[in-house]
């Protein structure tokens, strides 16, 4: 394409609708915003650089007066149908339209005063939609339909009244939306943003009657630094703990601890099913599928209700943490449940929905009170005048702050499976792993498979990320053509590192690659790298839970699924 060719020689043609997360299936090229138009010699009209192929001897002008005038007019037109409230917009400073307008030096709005298209607003547990701000780039639609194959969003109505919405302009909450948040991750403007819980958190932190505890997810530490000008992939684990403490969290724990706990439960479940299978039990459901990703859980409850016995019943690390914090830890500390506020910091927007799930409530009360995204945390840190870059490193609190390398890699595609393999191998064989790294399950390929030799038993595993790839796997399972023992699914491209709550990648795949690399680096640097060797986990089982899959474990750490298909 002209756009890429120009970029390769240092000519950056402006774009708006275009997005290509190279190496993944995240692509949007409708050639509809028309901002990237260029003049091609011999062509009657201007050509969109994003979608016009280069030809030998082609003469292209990217900055002729004709081009500049057209681009400016188009940008002015977009502005004429966009609310003029940048200063109070949640996307202010991150908005691609804002950046573009600055770049095109637009200082007047000749078409303002015209009619604005009337579109809906909605606040779901995870996502805020303010479609007045939609510039119709179709990125969210591409992601929702082509990448995630959920199809909750599409163009509705025609012409000036077009809006991107569920069919018949229904509300998102009435659809099969999984709240994966990938639409938010790609939205260039403030049309799709997260459900903001920062004010709620500020209130709680300032309330002397509340004990507020934090649990940041693995992928947060590999991305938060970007919000403070650090290079993608900068690990800020120590600064993260310090910042949370400075914000006024009473205890700063780590979701990685709960990730280790998840491996204990899920690992035990894998072994249980495998043992049954090897004993000739034909009813056992294989492959067992991971269940840490809440968007993935929503997806199979909506789309594959006939297969809900396949995924592991283990709760996600976020929820395991909440359950243990509000039982074991609260009892140990003598903190009454109603005084305790558990806040998770997640790379994810579906987690905001997950905390409200009825299945996960304890006597109708939530185990995790709410979840804020990486971006929201950055916002609060800035608001609290904390010089993040200058912060010293500190450790997480004990006992729910200790984690292993296995817990850390939960944040990337392939990580949960690798963590499980480390434990399953050693528990199954009773022998120490000859090599801790299972590099064969790593990478960014959409669907990956490997056969792991567990002392003679060939364990067939598969990793899928993005729901579209998950659908391919599930459809094979439905047809009875799936020959795996364990399958890991994460809804977002790259796993949690590319989650809907992470700092915006603005279409740069290098950002995801750097975050992934950072997590593996943190894993490699950890003294303990297998979940079952985490001393706090060992203590937890000894003191409180007994063993994985024990009655108390089942009650606190496992859940059930149900048919939630939209009929």
């Amino acid at each position, binding site marked *: 394409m002209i756009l890429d060719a120009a970029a390769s020689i240092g000519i950056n043609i402006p774009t708006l609708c275009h997005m290509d997360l190279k190496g993944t299936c995240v692509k949007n090229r409708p050639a509809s915003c028309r901002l990237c138009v260029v003049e091609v010699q011999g062509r009657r*009209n201007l050509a969109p650089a994003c*979608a016009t192929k280069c030809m030998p001897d082609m003469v292209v002008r990217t900055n002729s007066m004709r081009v500049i005038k*057209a681009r400016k*007019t188009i940008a002015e*037109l977009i502005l004429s149908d966009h609310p003029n409230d940048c200063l109070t917009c949640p996307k202010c400073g991150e908005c691609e339209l804002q950046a573009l307008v600055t770049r095109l030096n637009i200082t007047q709005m000749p078409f303002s005063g015209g009619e604005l298209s009337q579109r809906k607003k909605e606040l779901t547990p995870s996502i805020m939609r303010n479609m007045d701000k939609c510039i*119709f780039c179709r990125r969210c639609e591409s992601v929702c339909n082509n990448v995630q194959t959920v199809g909750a969003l599409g163009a509705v109505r025609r*012409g000036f*009244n077009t809006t991107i919405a569920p069919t018949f302009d229904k509300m998102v909450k009435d659809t099969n939306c999984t709240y994966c948040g990938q639409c938010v991750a790609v939205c260039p403007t403030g049309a799709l943003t997260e459900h903001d819980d920062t004010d709620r958190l500020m209130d709680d932190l300032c309330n002397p009657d509340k004990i507020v505890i934090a649990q940041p997810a693995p992928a947060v530490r590999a991305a938060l630094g970007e919000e403070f000008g650090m290079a993608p992939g900068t690990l800020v684990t120590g600064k993260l703990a310090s910042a949370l403490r400075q914000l006024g969290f009473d205890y700063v724990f780590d979701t990685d601890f709960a990730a280790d706990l998840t491996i204990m439960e899920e690992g035990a479940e894998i072994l249980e099913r495998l043992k049954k299978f090897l004993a000739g039990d034909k009813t056992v459901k294989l492959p067992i599928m991971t269940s840490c990703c809440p968007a993935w859980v929503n997806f199979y409850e909506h789309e594959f209700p006939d297969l809900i016995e396949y995924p592991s019943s283990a709760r996600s690390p976020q929820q395991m943490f909440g359950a243990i914090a509000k039982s074991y830890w609260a009892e140990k500390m003598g903190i009454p449940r109603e005084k305790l506020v558990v806040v998770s910091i997640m790379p994810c927007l579906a987690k905001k929905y997950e905390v409200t799930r009825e299945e996960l409530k304890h006597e109708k009360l939530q185990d995790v009170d709410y979840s804020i995204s990486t971006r929201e945390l950055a916002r609060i840190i800035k608001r609290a005048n904390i010089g993040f870059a200058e912060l010293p490193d500190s450790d997480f609190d004990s006992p729910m702050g200790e984690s292993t390398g296995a817990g850390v890699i939960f944040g990337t595609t392939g990580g949960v499976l690798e963590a499980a393999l480390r434990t399953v191998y050693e528990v199954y064989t009773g022998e120490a792993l000859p090599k801790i790294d299972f590099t064969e399950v790593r990478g960014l390929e959409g669907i990956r498979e490997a056969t792991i030799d567990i002392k003679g038993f060939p364990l067939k595993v598969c990793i899928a990320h993005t729901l579209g790839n998950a659908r391919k796997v599930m459809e094979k399972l439905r047809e009875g053509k799936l020959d795996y023992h364990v399958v890991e699914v994460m809804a977002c491209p790259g796993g949690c590192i590319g989650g809907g709550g992470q700092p915006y990648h603005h279409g740069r795949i290098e950002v995801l690659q750097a975050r992934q690399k950072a997590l593996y680096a943190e894993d490699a640097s950890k003294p303990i790298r297998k979940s079952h060797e985490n001393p706090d986990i060992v203590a937890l089982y000894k003191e409180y839970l007994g063993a994985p899959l024990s009655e108390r474990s089942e009650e606190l750490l496992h859940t059930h699924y149900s048919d939630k298909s939209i009929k």
Partner: protein
Amino acid sequence: MKTLTVDDLAAIKKRAEKLLELREKSNALVSEESCGIEKGTGHLQILCCGGTGCKASESALIVKNLKASLEQHGISDKVDVITTGCFGFCEKGPIVKIIPDNTFYTQVKPSDAEEIVSEHIIAGRKVERLLYVDPETQKHISDSKHMNFYGKQVRVALRNCGLIDPENIEEYIARDGYAALADMVFHKTPEEVIGMIKASGLRGRGGAGFPTGKKWEFCRAYQDDAKYVVCNADEGDPGAFMDRSIMEGDPHSILEAMAICGFCIGSNNGLIYIRAEYPLAVHRLQVALEQAREYGFLGKDILGSGFDFDIEIRYGAGAFVCGEETALIHSMEGKRGEPTLKPPFPAESGYLGKPTNVNNVETLANVPVILTKGPEWFASIGTEKSKGTKVFALAGKINNVGLIEVPMGTTLREIIYDIGGGVKNGKKFKAVQTGGPSGGCLTEKHLDIPIDYESLTAAGSMMGSGGMIVMDEDDCMVAIAKFYLEFIVGESCGKCTPCRIGNKRMLEILTKITEGKGEMKDLEMLKNLAEVIKDTALCGLGQTSPNPVLSTMNNFYEEYEEHVKKHKCRAKKCKALLTYTINPEKCRGCGICAKDCPASAIMGDVRKPHVINPYLCIRCGMCMSRCHFGAISVL
């Protein structure tokens, strides 16, 4: 299902020719004498238009009454009543034609049936009052050949419309129907046929004018396990109905052409994308499809040649943009009807991602006759770059509204004045809008341009699908531009910025101007915007959408200026710019205007001159129509 052989086809043709013999002979024959049973005419035929327009004027009831009357007179065995497709002269519909004397009755009512039967069919006397009256000579003309409306027409695509019974395949066969297909599957290679289409110079009649043979050649070059032939019957230009008429009057020509195209490009599947608002065309196509399958012209192993081809009908919901081929394909796939960027062209990746050839109805209707009569014959009609004929739908302020077909290169003057009978009510010609909503307005100075694809584009309009709307001095060109833009704003799919927002903003500026609130800088902005939209919109609809604005601005700039500077609309169409006043010398103070004024804007004492309060006046014109003394005028 029986498999027809080529010999069977010849036999059917022979049998069916008898049906048409009378009609074809009489077509050649011009006689003032009328025929009738009492005058010794052995057999007569009554053709009655069964097109949508005439059907709306109860032509089906005319047929019923005619049949009943013939029955009553006991002569139904001597007279056939045949429902045909559109004759084209819709202004004068319903049309009834008597064969063999070729009498052309216009504006026939169901109640006229009895008179036609007893007077003409039996007694052999023409029913004078139903004959066409020449507007110039005021003389009755009984034969279409002598009417100016038909005189300059050359009917190629419409060759069978108004002649054959579209629901009888044998009548089509009698007119050399399916002969091209039969000949092709046994004696020709796809390359030969493509070569013939290329040699004929046939270009797409949907608007853009791409050479049809080349299009087929491109599609043939792509190999895949499935390929598709699509007939674009999503006729969307306001006022254009040539495609509908062809499908209603000659459906088999489309089916045959699609099969021919399938053979050429290597496809076995045809799809007709037709708007659901065309129920009669759909019905006729369905009947034709069934008959064609029954006779073995469609389906497996056509005529025993080994070539398989069948056709499915797909319905559109009538979105204008779905006439654009990529949008059409998306609509057929069940997706939102919006265009995508080309390349890839449908020939490479079309319906379901497979190579697809999309042709418009009128284009396809030309194909069989090109093969039977030869490409040289076709190429002998028309201009250097535009061969053959073009069907136009005449509408607006013109005497002879209807469907006409003329050789390419005919001038607008010939069409409007000779065929169309000039401007209605003797008013002055102002402009003609060609090419549908995305075409442009041409003026007096363009009247003598021989029209073809290139000349229309050069003049700032386009061929489009062939809509032609005539405007007179009472039409305001700013209001006309606004009208077309309203259509475009309503029909834009909303995908690309210039079309979605740009056209909306243009419409807002135009509205401002017609309301007298325009400024001179608005005109500049309008022009700039129009040029940017033309330069940057994604699809043909968007790229041509500013044409009505640009062409009226180019040709009638003074009218725009008048609206802005003088707040005046010379055609008195822009309400906000009108001032109603009462001439005190003429006003008798009767008070009827004040009584009927819905806005209570008129005041005055009885028997004293009244006055209109311009601030309250809503410019409805009620007072003017009520005044008995002509005291009220509008400026």
